[in-house]
């Protein structure tokens, strides 16, 4: 499913005279298969943008289609359609462990499955829950009967993630999935997201503050500032125009910083991942000597 968004605008106070736009005139496309980063400060409009993708925030102005779902057309986006869309676009909010509620881990992961498949059999549900838990690296037999409030913080976050992917969404949207994790937890979460990216979940959209992560992990990214999508492209494209980013008060990835500082004597044509940066740098060194 492709996300196409044209001149999308949104205001939280649409009736007031001097209305402020949370989103203003956003036009961008997220292709199926992208591992897509969403960058911006708090209040830049990125949260408002992602909540449009599964209809949590209705389209006010402009056009938005997600796959075959036209979110602009209110007459056709009935309740049933909206529900179908929400199954296909899974959304993991910031600190998702704070939304756990059920008595057991099993029940919490099953919540979405029961909601989206009203007539589902017990076997069907159990199978979905089990495979979701295995995907996120949780031991089904050990954890399924435990209370989600009694397990460790890292496990809680994985349970919350399992609860979203249990219905096999085609697009997975995550808001700051690494917030509060320790370095190891962060690394293994990124690995997990790349693993998921190869399964039913064809598109991954990640909101992140950390440019190093975006450079390292994403194929493409959009930069939000003051509700506008000010830049969109591959890390190679985004971080080549570093001055623009820094004007917006966004810190560049370290590889970007170094590439910039080595100019003009050395120009590196890198995609800004650490590996590629090192390769290109060593190449240049060999050329020079």
């Amino acid at each position, binding site marked *: 499913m492709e996300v196409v968004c044209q001149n999308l605008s949104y205001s939280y106070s649409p009736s007031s005279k001097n209305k402020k736009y949370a989103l203003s005139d956003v036009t961008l496309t997220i292709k199926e298969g992208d591992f897509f980063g969403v960058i911006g400060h708090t209040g830049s409009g990125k949260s408002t943008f992602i909540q449009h993708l599964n209809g949590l925030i209705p389209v006010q102005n402009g056009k938005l289609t997600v796959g075959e779902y036209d979110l602009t057309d209110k007459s056709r986006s009935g309740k049933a359609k909206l529900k179908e869309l929400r199954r296909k676009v899974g959304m993991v909010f910031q600190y998702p462990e704070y939304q756990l509620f059920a008595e057991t881990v099993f029940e919490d992961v099953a919540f979405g499955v029961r909601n989206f498949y009203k007539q589902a059999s017990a076997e069907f549900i159990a199978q979905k829950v089990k495979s979701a838990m295995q995907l996120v690296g949780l031991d089904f037999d050990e954890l399924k009967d435990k209370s989600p409030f009694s397990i460790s913080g890292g496990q809680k976050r994985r349970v919350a993630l399992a609860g979203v992917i249990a219905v096999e969404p085609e697009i997975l949207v995550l808001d700051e999935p690494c917030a509060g994790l320790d370095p190891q937890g962060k690394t293994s979460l990124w690995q997990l997201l790349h693993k998921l990216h190869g399964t039913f979940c064809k598109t991954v959209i990640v909101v992140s503050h950390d440019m190093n992560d975006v450079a390292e992990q994403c194929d493409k990214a959009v930069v939000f500032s003051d509700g506008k999508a000010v830049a969109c492209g591959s890390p190679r494209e985004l971080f080549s125009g570093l001055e623009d980013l820094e004007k917006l008060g966004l810190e560049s990835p*370290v590889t970007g910083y170094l590439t910039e500082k080595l100019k003009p004597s050395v120009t590196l044509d890198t995609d800004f991942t650490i590996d590629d940066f090192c390769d290109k740098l060593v190449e240049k060194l060999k050329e020079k000597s």
Partner: protein
Amino acid sequence: MQAVKVDKVSYKYSEKEKLAVDGVSLEIEAGEFVAVVGRNASGKSTLARMINGLIAPLSGEITVFGNNTLDEKSLFEIRKTCGIVFQNPDNQMVASIVEDDVAFGPENIGVSREEIGKRIDFALQATGTEPFRTEMASKLSGGQKQRVAIAGVLALKPKILILDESTSMLDPIGRAEVMAVVENLRKTENMTVMVITHYMDEVVGCDKVFVMADGKLLKTGTPEQIFNDKELLDEAGLELPVPAKIAEGLKRRGVDVGLPLTKEQLKERLWKLFAKT
């Protein structure tokens, strides 16, 4: 002068659980800038709470500028001396309006109105939050809220400031704001600072780093010593700061630039490298 002395301290939250802090001994000198790192649940926050006297050690003892935290009578003095800023700025504000919240601490220790006013002026100025003095705290950004939380602690005129993952819920701008305030306090007030953090770049400028794992103190050292100890990093679940990661990548490709911890250092070394060739 010694600011904090932790002597063979252990703690557990309940009978059944294992030790959250297990025989930790460490010392912090006055004016020092130290970091405590390690996985989640490795005992870092428990240690901070014991230093502040919020919880009493099960065994061993802690002294803060000579006051023992086990001594009920000196607890008040310890909390005045050693302020702690927590992770979630929303959950440490008592009052809705910024100045009312900053006033809370000095009100508790019973100083005069004039003195409270002076302390609020000082604390707001030190954290750059005067413009929000009469604003609703709930309308501020994360970084601004956390600076107000620091101001609330500063109003008690502490000599030690503990930041318990105080930047983990903030965006980069908020983080930078908070770290700038800390830097300023170290310079102008000669404040002893202890940061508990998962951000390796916050560790880099420290005098001393304490590495914890499973409640134990694995190693104490300078950032250079810590980040050069590969085994230790693995054992404690730590990572290199990004510039050091790049240097490592280069080393694997046969280019040795040492282990620079900041991007500025790495830049200098790369410049030298290209100047030579």
